[in-house]
């Protein structure tokens, strides 16, 4: 291999694909695609459910096992986080936040065992962001009533109506795009790096560059970025929902 081949790249080139469609079927004239994302999501849900069943079976009040300590630590951490960020009144929100965080982080980290990240499909973060969107507006309507909720759109002057609607609609879009963009950019940069390293290896014939270097980047893009985005997602969810209520007490 010559240096000109390196500049040209490999013949197959780099191709970044969306999630593959495993099978598709039709219900009432609507085509439903069973994609990789859906299947891996169900796998994650099953795995997490089994893990939690294992963690929480056979709980005792004294002589507790290590397993129970871990389970209690998870629960108290999530509840503590929610109370810190939203206030004691919102304690009942912790299960949703915990589920969102778990799903998001396992969905990102699943790439470490060679599967496609669930969060690298825009549909997954969008679905979570839409649930949050419904919760924000539901909370707002429940606290202020439908009249007060609608009045919020013409606040402080009716001219602001389109701007208010736009800012409300941009919330789920920006939340989901941020999560998706971070994960998918990590995926693309990692595949670019693998490509470059494999081309270099081919040109010099010794495979020393492919050892170690991808691991460091994977540590950042998969572990750190996945954790950070999951954390940011739940923090924003909590901030938006507790703001929607209008009563500002901690």
């Amino acid at each position, binding site marked *: 291999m010559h240096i000109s081949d390196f500049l040209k790249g490999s013949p197959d080139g780099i191709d970044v694909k969306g999630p593959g469609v495993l099978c598709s079927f039709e219900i009432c004239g609507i085509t439903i695609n069973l994609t990789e994302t859906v299947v891996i999501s169900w796998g994650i849900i099953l795995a997490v459910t089994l893990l939690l069943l294992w963690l929480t079976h056979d709980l005792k009040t004294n002589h507790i096992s290590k397993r129970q300590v871990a389970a209690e630590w998870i629960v108290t951490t999530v509840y503590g986080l929610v109370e810190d960020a939203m206030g004691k009144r919102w304690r009942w929100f912790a299960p949703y936040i915990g589920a969102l965080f778990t799903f998001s982080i396992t969905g990102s980290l699943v790439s470490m065992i060679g599967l496609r990240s669930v969060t690298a499909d825009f549909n997954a973060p969008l679905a979570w962001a839409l649930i949050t969107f419904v919760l924000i507006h539901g909370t707002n309507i429940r606290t202020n009533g439908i009249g007060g909720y609608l009045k919020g759109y013409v606040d402080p002057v009716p001219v602001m109506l389109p701007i208010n609607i736009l800012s409300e609609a941009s919330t789920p879009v920006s939340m989901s795009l*941020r999560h998706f963009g971070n994960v998918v950019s990590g995926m693309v940069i990692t595949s670019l790096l693998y490509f470059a390293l494999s081309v270099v290896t081919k040109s010099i014939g010794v495979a020393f560059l492919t050892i170690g270097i991808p691991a460091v980047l994977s540590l950042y893009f998969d572990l750190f970025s996945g954790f950070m*985005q999951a954390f*940011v997602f739940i923090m924003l969810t909590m901030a938006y929902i507790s703001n929607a209520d209008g009563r500002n007490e901690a």
Partner: protein
Amino acid sequence: MDNNEMARAIVLGASALGAGTAMIAGIGPGIGEGFAVGKACESIGRQPESSGAVTRTMFIGCAVAESTGIYGLLVALLLMFANPFINKL
């Protein structure tokens, strides 16, 4: 080179240029996050006991500030891997 091939080449070249130009969006978040982290370091230096809360807030702020950069990145990725213009020829 026939006309269609020429048009294709122009679209591909312009898309590559556009993808590069879109990444100028990386400047803004870079500067902004630099400021944010600098301020966070200052405030941790002043009040080391509140470092946990400061770090957490800083990470959230950084992640939010990053979103404009990520929009730019998405545009660049779209132009590189899912070019919408090449099918319009």
